[in-house]
């Protein structure tokens, strides 16, 4: 048993719904008409292309191809993160590369091996779908963490230097800044997690139920993946921040001035 197929005509009815936000935009002169059409259009084309590739990849289910696709996803996430981080490429590239790759692969294979207990660890459906969920979160929490970390050190530079003057070693001097950016990056997701099931039904669970899984199965997946997402986010933030500090402070422990992009 699977979800009911959406026909082309059905999809057109779906697009028809867009008339409502477009009328609202026009009415209040929001100027969002063009952006709406562009965003929805872009998403549709991207998804059609991805759908085409995924059909192909799922049908072949070749371990090398599956893994290569996952790596491609990771690389895309890395470059997306770098373009949104306010640090120069040469400072942030290696930390993000190592953090994203290790944390995602580690948590993903642990999840597939011990939580789902897949016989075939490179099974396309699990590797790619779950990998995407982990990466989406890794991307957003790392951007928040890295930007807030360096911005706070810069805006509270006096406090940072005072800590050094008080005898702090590099890690001790950075401690309150690490603490704050961890909290900023991870707490919002945790707060959202706490309301799941009451306020919102998460996308993956909805998808699974529509796809024919029993709610009991969908719930177990949802619980396990939320934990995996949270852990993967925390691990990647730790690695990004600690690795980036190696290049962004001089040998006297002071923040370098030329690390910020633009």
């Amino acid at each position, binding site marked *: 048993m699977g979800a009911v197929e959406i026909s082309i005509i059905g999809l057109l009815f779906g697009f028809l719904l867009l008339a409502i936000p477009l009328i609202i935009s026009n009415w209040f002169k929001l100027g969002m008409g063009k952006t709406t059409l562009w965003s929805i259009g872009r998403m549709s084309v991207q998804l059609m292309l991805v759908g085409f590739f995924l059909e192909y990849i799922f049908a072949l289910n070749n371990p090398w191809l599956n893994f290569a696709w996952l790596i491609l996803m990771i690389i895309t996430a890395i470059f997306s993160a770098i373009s949104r981080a306010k640090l120069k490429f040469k400072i942030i590239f290696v930390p993000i590369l190592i953090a994203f790759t290790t944390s995602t692969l580690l948590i993903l294979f642990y999840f597939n091996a011990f939580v789902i207990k897949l016989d075939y660890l490179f099974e396309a459906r699990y590797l790619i779908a779950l990998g995407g969920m982990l990466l989406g979160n890794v991307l957003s929490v790392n951007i928040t963490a890295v930007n807030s970390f360096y911005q706070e050190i810069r805006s509270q530079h*006096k406090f940072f230097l005072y800590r*050094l003057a*008080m*005898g702090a*070693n590099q890690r*001790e001097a950075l401690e309150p800044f690490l603490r704050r950016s961890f909290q900023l990056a991870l707490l919002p997701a945790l707060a959202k997690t706490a309301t799941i099931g009451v306020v919102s039904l998460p996308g993956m669970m909805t998808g699974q139920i529509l796809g024919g899984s029993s709610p009991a199965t969908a719930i177990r997946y949802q619980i396990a993946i939320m934990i995996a997402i949270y852990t993967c986010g925390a691990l990647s933030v730790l690695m990004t921040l600690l690795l980036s500090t190696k290049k962004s402070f*001089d040998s006297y422990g*002071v923040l370098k001035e030329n690390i910020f992009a633009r």
Partner: protein
Amino acid sequence: MKKRKPIIEFKNIFLDFKTKTKIKEIFKDCNFAVNSGQKVVVFGKSGTGKSTLLNLILGFKQPKSGSIFFKNKKITSENIWHVRSQIAYVDQDVMMGEGLVKEIIDEYFSFIANSKVKFSQKELEKQMSDFDLDLSLLEKDISHLSGGERQRLALVVALLLKRPFMILDEVTSALDPASKKIVIEKLIKNKKQTLLVITHDKEWQQEPGVKVFDFKEKKWVQ
């Protein structure tokens, strides 16, 4: 000849930085030393780069050329961490962090470099009352303290660290005349401690035995 024992010494220091319109020279072949136990006051118009003097000593900035010595040893990126642990530093509108005052104090004493420094409750109480700070402040959130209270609290912490060299940047400018007098007398009284004070306040220079350095002219005037 009396043997000099410099605690800090600048030898042939050059340092300039670019402003929008010109290159500003702060140090041009500057030689400057503070001997152990001395009380030195540095004055000069604002904008002359007095704080740069402190930034150089604490390793927050490096000179273009020349060397800085701490107890006759050249300051490097390796030994700067030790040098900092020998200097108690307080500047104007000091930022000590967030949270309860007593927890903030405990945190600074939890640094590895300070782990051997101990102070008794009695010492803390004595220092606080000397600086006219109520003991109830310890239980307060630091954001509820006034600027003057924060300044004096930082001085208390600096003294509790019992470091041989104390550097103060405009610490008395925010204090009312009465507490200014208390603070100056207390800090000058400590014979062993070397003191380097950057200040506009004339009161410091009136204390006996104080040496005075004119930063703009780069020469000793008293």
